[in-house]
């Protein structure tokens, strides 16, 4: 009896410890969100609760130039993700279902490109874009992002395609179903969740991308991360507004990320693990 109660006490102690650690971990996010609802004058000294609730910070940041940056971020990210899907899905399809001699080689070639650090291509990318007048344009960034993130789509979607039993496709083939129909009527519905999750994750990565955005854009095609980085130096100590913008910019990727976390695990461990 005593042992069991001891164990119970131990268990709830561990649970309590888990809660504390999780609160510590998420504290910076919590503090940022509550600061965004504080009046600017009451940000300092720091307090863990809101004394005077206000939405004013959000009102102020939204009638400023932030809209052009949101537009840039949304357009660049959405178009890049759609292009990645348009290019990556057929490739993943061929790797899994096509009659290639050595699909694994192509698959690992795509994965290996992910190991290349972005700074390795920066200088020629800059020169070529300058030459083609693509510096500080959305098109320029989109082209780069598609080239860099298509392998990510292929990497992840391949592991979802592999879950589809090949017998279904063979049966469809015998029944005279065309490849095109097979893709849209069989493969896509069966791996819909995997494809959507991969797309959401790619969205998160492109939305948060900083290196190319800060190097290759200036004023016109600035995405949100670049704007955030400059905001800190431009606006000085308006920390409530800073927190409000931060909260707005992380909202979408955090929601998308949490939705698609399982696919991240399954896709990146090459399907060996079901998340």
């Amino acid at each position: 009896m005593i042992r069991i109660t001891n164990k119970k006490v131990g268990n709830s102690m561990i649970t309590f410890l888990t809660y504390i650690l999780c609160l510590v971990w998420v504290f910076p996010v919590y503090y940022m969100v509550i600061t965004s609802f504080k009046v600017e004058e009451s940000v300092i000294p720091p307090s863990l609760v809101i004394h005077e609730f206000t939405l004013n910070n959000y009102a102020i940041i939204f009638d400023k130039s932030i809209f052009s940056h949101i537009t840039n971020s949304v357009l660049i990210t959405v178009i890049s993700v759609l292009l990645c899907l348009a290019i990556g899905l057929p490739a993943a399809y061929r790797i899994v279902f096509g009659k290639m001699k050595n699909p694994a080689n192509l698959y690992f070639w795509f994965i290996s490109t992910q190991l290349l650090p972005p700074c390795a291509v920066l200088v020629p990318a800059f020169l070529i874009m300058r030459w083609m007048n693509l510096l500080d344009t959305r098109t320029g960034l989109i082209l780069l992002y598609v080239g860099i993130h298509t392998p990510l789509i292929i990497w992840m979607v391949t592991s979802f395609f592999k879950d589809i039993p090949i017998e279904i496709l063979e049966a469809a083939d015998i029944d005279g179903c065309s490849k095109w129909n097979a893709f849209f009527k069989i493969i896509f519905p069966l791996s819909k969740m995997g494809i959507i999750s991969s797309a959401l994750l790619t969205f998160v990565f492109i939305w948060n991308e900083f290196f190319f955005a800060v190097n290759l854009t200036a004023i016109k095609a600035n995405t949100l991360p670049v704007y955030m980085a400059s905001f800190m130096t431009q606006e000085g100590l308006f920390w409530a507004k800073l927190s409000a913008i931060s909260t707005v910019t992380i909202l979408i990727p955090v929601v998308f990320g949490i939705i698609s976390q399982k696919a991240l695990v399954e896709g990146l461990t090459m399907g060996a693990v079901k998340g």
Partner: protein
Amino acid sequence: MKQKVDSLLTLPAVIIVAVVTQILFLATIFLSFVKWIVIRPDLGKSFAGIKNYVWIFTAPETYRIIGNTISITALSLILCLILGFCFSLLLNRRFPLRKLCNICILIPFFMMDAVIGIIWKTLLLHPSFGIAGYISQMSNSVPIDFFGQHAFISIIIMIVWQWTPFFVLIILAGLQGIDHEIVESAMIDGAGSIRILFQIKIPALRYHIQVVTMLGLIFILKVFGLIYVTTRGGPGFATTNLPYQVFKISNYKWDIGQAASYATIMVAMTLIIIMFMFNFIQKQIKRLEI
């Protein structure tokens, strides 16, 4: 004919990926042998041989920068691995609000570098107005100058905060894949929880630990945004890593050749790590049977 249609499926992907990653990188290697300073058109462009590399390897800061790149990555990786493992063990139990705890841990991973840098530098660690400064005022101690004196540690704190969730994601998935019966029968045989951890759980997670370490390594090697937003590589060269140096040379010195040389060195370093990774992937190919 059929083969042709088939290869059309992969062609666009192969072309754009090859152009953006491989051809541009070949161009980088080529440019690393060129002397070309964009803001000095009067000097012209000329072939420089290995002069850029000679310059880089005689500059004392280069060794500091390479050392920083390695030590930032290694330290962050070890901390992420330990913390990730602890969190995974804690979260791999049945308790109320488990999902919510999971989400709390995950959030930082999906936040952009710029925001992470900003909230740590201003709201949390600012020596006079941040939480850290407030605590030291309350306790009457000298406020710690995180992003000045202790910039290196601060960068590591942020990287660990951002990347531990990724480790938790994969290690936790691995823990959940372990057969309950094995653990239970070991418990019935009288194995303590520490023995179960080292003799059953860790061996079963070998694959996950390898994957997460390799991916973490590759991602943390190229850390840039956090450094750009908070320390700008400083003070001095204290937090400059190779990606930041490439940025600095190409944006402030406009020296195409030198920037390209640094980038090539960065890739060479990454490649050495990939060699290790490649062996590992080869083993997986046999297991996978695509």
